[in-house]
């Protein structure tokens, strides 16, 4: 269980295209994901879920399940020894529903049995009597309707009032937009293995994004002190925000403690769709005011996010949606209201782009409308209003870091266009692909541009920190080895190479071992918010710098000189006065060097009642130009090319940056044309990869990339995060391109075949 990666020595400093050590094992099927965990004598667990989005639980009778041979334990709400509820921001979600269920798929009980089939049969043998109630699935109705939970229905209302609320412009455009519910659609379903410990605690091996947040919620619900709950990261098969919340963690630990045996659980695919949070669906109203020459005067916006049944991270998501609602433009006056409300739809929380994605569909459609109303080129309008360093956001915060908005726009539109439709197009590359539905004469090509931005790291005064430990010692054959220990969840983002690159950059050529991420070291925060390069990367850098000072001190002791006379140069300590050098291996001959640190970024502040404050640390900017072919007759779209300029600060591993951009682009394109959780009265109608469609290789566009490298002050090596921006404006650019091709308004993402063909 768990695997340390010992890197072979190779050129791998900052800026190099270092390959992932787990890349080949993953492509060969040799990498151990959490679903591959196995230990002698383990039991298998299954969750019983509510089939109803809203119902009162009249009774739960587990006798039938206990009577199934091979069943070792059945647990329900009454078996939860500690806090009955959990949650990332507000602990409002029951471990098991006891009196009422608030969404389809809400856990009611869990079973542990000798084998998976017995667990499934036993869960089905639990007799739950429901009094089925009408679900409230319209967020507008929930906003003003009776409380669906003791904590009420409004997770958060953020009002931003900036400048003169009565300001108005010569030209005004208005629009209403909608974004459907997207799923993270990670390949590796939720999986974990809980092992009871001798000290009365429990050890959970788990695919997650944030070990310590899981630990604290588990411990509270188990009624255990946190130090008795130990977590180790297991192989993660994708996350994208969907593993930030607790899913099976508490159930597994509870069953392990109850049975005294290791317990494993792996969600089925349909269960996974019900078992994790999704991207918030959004309804947005916008009114933009501008001068006749095209300067933005005021943005008014109302953003309503459907948070589903429980809070998850709705508060932070709606804060982002409100803060970034105007887009990366200079807006002197703003009136923005963001709401996240509770309904009986599936809970929504973190997903790549976190609130910035939804509003980007709104603000970019508005910018195109405004350009049309002004008779102005949409690129020109955006360049004219593009944020620059020193400009003020609608939250009153001055952007002090790099803000190359004009640069990312110019880079995106500078890429050569793909060959035109007149040059012909292979059938598989047309809309409809293998279905051979379109002749070239049936197609229309469109172009669209969109620009987006988002915060890096946690905001609004959150104490964002990463603890790191480093041990330097001589390994086999007396070569120096650095062991880096952080609790950073590797979910595919590439910290696995970055930790190694930073250690070598700071300490010279040496073997680097990245110890298992676990709760044996302090928190690394979540692998989210595009923050781990800055935060965990920064922590590794900081602890290496400390180690360098310790090495210099030790060398000074050996030579009997003052440390101030020595410098660190190319992996050696150099005494410049005597031209003597001492290699790392020589210094470590005296014993290991151990250092630890806690890395923090510059503090941020909460937003005040008017939504004003320096709430964010730093921002990432991005622009996408989409080229699409549309078959208006059938409403089918193929995205031909996405050209992007992305503000990355500095690319620490350009190969991985390209990987993030290509993957994030596919996710953005998916939201624009196909990805949606289809709901019918709170019921998920498509919980499978048969019906929740994500782009295949035939649907993924060519991606033309320009990295804008303007180092970010205060960021380790000047690097910004890169994971989220590709998913922010790529989808809105695709929508704009479909509008260009069809002349349709298309206020909703995804643009479904019906939306195009029946209106064309």
């Amino acid at each position, binding site marked *: 269980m768990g695997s340390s990666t010992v890197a072979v020595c190779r050129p791998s400093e900052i800026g190099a295209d270092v390959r992932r050590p787990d890349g080949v094992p993953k492509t060969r099927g040799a990498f151990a994901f959490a679903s591959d965990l196995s230990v002698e004598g383990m039991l298998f667990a299954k969750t019983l879920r509510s089939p109803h989005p809203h119902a009162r639980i009249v009774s739960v009778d587990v006798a039938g399940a206990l009577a199934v041979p091979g069943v070792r334990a059945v647990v329900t709400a009454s078996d939860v020894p500690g806090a009955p509820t959990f949650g990332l921001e507000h602990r409002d979600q029951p471990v098991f529903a006891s009196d009422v269920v608030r969404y389809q798929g809400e856990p009611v009980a869990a079973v542990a049995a000798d084998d998976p089939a017995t667990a499934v049969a036993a869960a089905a043998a639990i007799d739950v009597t429901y009094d089925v109630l009408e679900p409230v699935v319209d967020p507008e109705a929930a906003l003003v309707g009776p409380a669906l939970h003791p904590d009420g229905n409004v997770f958060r209302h953020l009002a931003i009032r900036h400048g003169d609320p009565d300001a108005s412009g010569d030209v005004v455009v208005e629009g209403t937009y909608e974004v459907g519910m997207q799923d993270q659609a990670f390949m590796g379903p939720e999986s974990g293995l809980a092992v009871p410990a001798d000290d009365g605690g429990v050890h959970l091996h788990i695919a997650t994004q944030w070990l310590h947040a899981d630990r604290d919620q588990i411990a509270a619900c188990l009624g255990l002190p946190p130090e008795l709950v130990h977590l180790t990261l297991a192989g993660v098969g994708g996350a994208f925000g969907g593993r930030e919340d607790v899913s099976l963690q508490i159930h597994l630990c509870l069953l392990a403690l109850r049975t005294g045996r290791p317990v494993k659980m792996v969600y089925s695919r349909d269960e996974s769709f019900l078992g994790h949070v999704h991207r918030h669906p959004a309804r947005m109203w916008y009114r933009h005011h501008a001068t006749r020459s095209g300067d933005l005067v005021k943005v008014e916006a109302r953003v309503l996010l459907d948070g589903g049944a429980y809070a998850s991270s709705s508060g932070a998501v709606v804060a982002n949606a409100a803060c970034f609602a105007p887009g990366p433009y200079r807006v002197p006056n703003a009136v923005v209201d963001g709401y996240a409300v509770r309904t009986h739809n599936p809970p929504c929380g973190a997903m790549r782009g976190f609130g910035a994605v939804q509003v980007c569909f709104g603000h970019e459609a508005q910018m195109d409308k405004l350009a049309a109303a002004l008779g102005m080129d949409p690129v020109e309008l955006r360049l004219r209003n593009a944020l620059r360093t020193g400009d003020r956001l609608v939250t009153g915060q001055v952007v002090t870091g790099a803000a190359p908005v004009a640069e990312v726009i110019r880079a995106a539109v500078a890429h050569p266009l793909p060959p035109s439709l007149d040059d012909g197009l292979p059938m598989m590359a047309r809309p409809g692909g293998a*279905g*051979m539905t379109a002749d070239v004469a049936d197609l229309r090509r469109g172009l669209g541009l969109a620009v987006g931005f988002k915060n890096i790291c946690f905001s609004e005064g959150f104490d964002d920190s990463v603890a790191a430990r480093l041990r330097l010692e001589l390994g086999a054959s007396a070569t120096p080895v650095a062991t880096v220990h952080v609790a950073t969840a590797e979910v595919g983002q590439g910290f696995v190479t970055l930790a190694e690159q930073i250690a070598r950059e700071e300490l010279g050529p040496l073997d680097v071992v990245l110890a298992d991420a676990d709760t044996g070291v302090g928190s690394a925060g979540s692998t989210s918010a595009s923050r781990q390069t800055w935060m965990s990367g920064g922590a590794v850098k900081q602890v290496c710098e400390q180690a360098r000072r310790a090495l210099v001190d030790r060398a000074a002791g050996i030579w009997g000189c003052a440390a101030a006379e020595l410098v660190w140069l190319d992996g050696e300590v150099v005494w410049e006065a005597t031209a003597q050098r001492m290699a790392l291996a020589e210094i470590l001959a005296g014993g290991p060097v151990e250092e630890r640190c806690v890395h923090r970024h510059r503090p941020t502040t909460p937003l005040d009642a008017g939504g004003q404050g320096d709430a964010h640390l730093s921002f990432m900017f991005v622009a996408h130009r989409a080229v699409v072919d549309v078959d208006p007759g059938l409403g089918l779209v193929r995205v031909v090319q996405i050209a992007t300029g992305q503000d990355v600060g500095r690319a620490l591993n350009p190969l991985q940056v390209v990987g993030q951009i290509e993957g994030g682009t596919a996710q953005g394109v998916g939201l624009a*044309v196909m990805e949606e959780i289809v709901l019918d009265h709170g019921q998920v109608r498509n919980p499978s990869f048969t019906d929740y469609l994500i*782009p295949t290789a035939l649907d993924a566009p060519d991606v033309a990339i320009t990295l804008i490298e303007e180092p970010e002050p205060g960021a380790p090596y000047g690097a910004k995060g890169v994971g989220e921006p590709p998913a922010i404006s790529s989808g809105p650019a695709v929508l704009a391109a479909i509008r260009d091709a069809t002349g349709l308004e298309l206020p909703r993402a995804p643009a*479904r*075949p*019906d939306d195009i063909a*029946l209106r064309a």
Partner: protein
Amino acid sequence: MSVTWPTRLDEAVDAAAAPAATLLAGGTDLAVEVNAGRRRPVAVVALRRVPELRDLEITPAEVVVGAGMTFSAIAAELAAAVPALAAAARTVGSPQIRNAGTVGGNIVTASPAGDTLPVLAALDASVELRSAAGTRTVPLRELITGVKRTAIRPGEVLVRIRVPPRRGAQQFLKVGTRNAMVISLASAALVVDEERRTVACGLGSVGPVPVRPAEAEAFIAGEIDWERLTVPEGAVARFADLAARAARPITDHRATAEYRHHAVAVLVGRALRRSIDVVPA
């Protein structure tokens, strides 16, 4: 669960006679059902080792397709003889699915979205069923009786599909929301027979069983100049409209009935334009 692996057709028919027998061909439908817990087979008869089920016979009188031919094999081997069937096979799932799934499996599953079914319907194909009681041949339109329902009797093995000869253009078009690996929202097959001067049309995913729009077929056959193989422009829209009127689509999470109606008309019109030169009225 027991599994038997017959290697000859008569062994397979004997094994299929067991009351609890479940026939397994490519497994691309059955395994999904089993994994989802909807079926728990007790006696599986695996057909993949029966070579007769993969026989292909192409003669001027008939094309006989072994029920165990995979979609990949059909796409490769029938591209010239029955191009619409090959085109439909190419739209099924992913390469892995096409390498495993069979045309016989597609028929017995009888899903409204089964990709080869509208083609086989338009081709007036029939299937040969064999059991201990003997062999019978049933037209496809009588075989498929409803959503995932067929007239196959217990103990019968679908052995081969008989496709009568057709001389003329064939088309298959399928709408899905992505470019591959997608369940059809609507599909259309068009089979022109210049000898009999007929146009046959099969519509998929727009009714419980494949739809043959008889009125549309008769109309367009009368509009075509069979000597020149042309059709007047004005007839195309009418043909498409008549064909769509025969459709009985439903609204589900994949698409609305309104869209399916619309899409079928578009597909049929395009299929005709690809098959017959359209001339100004």
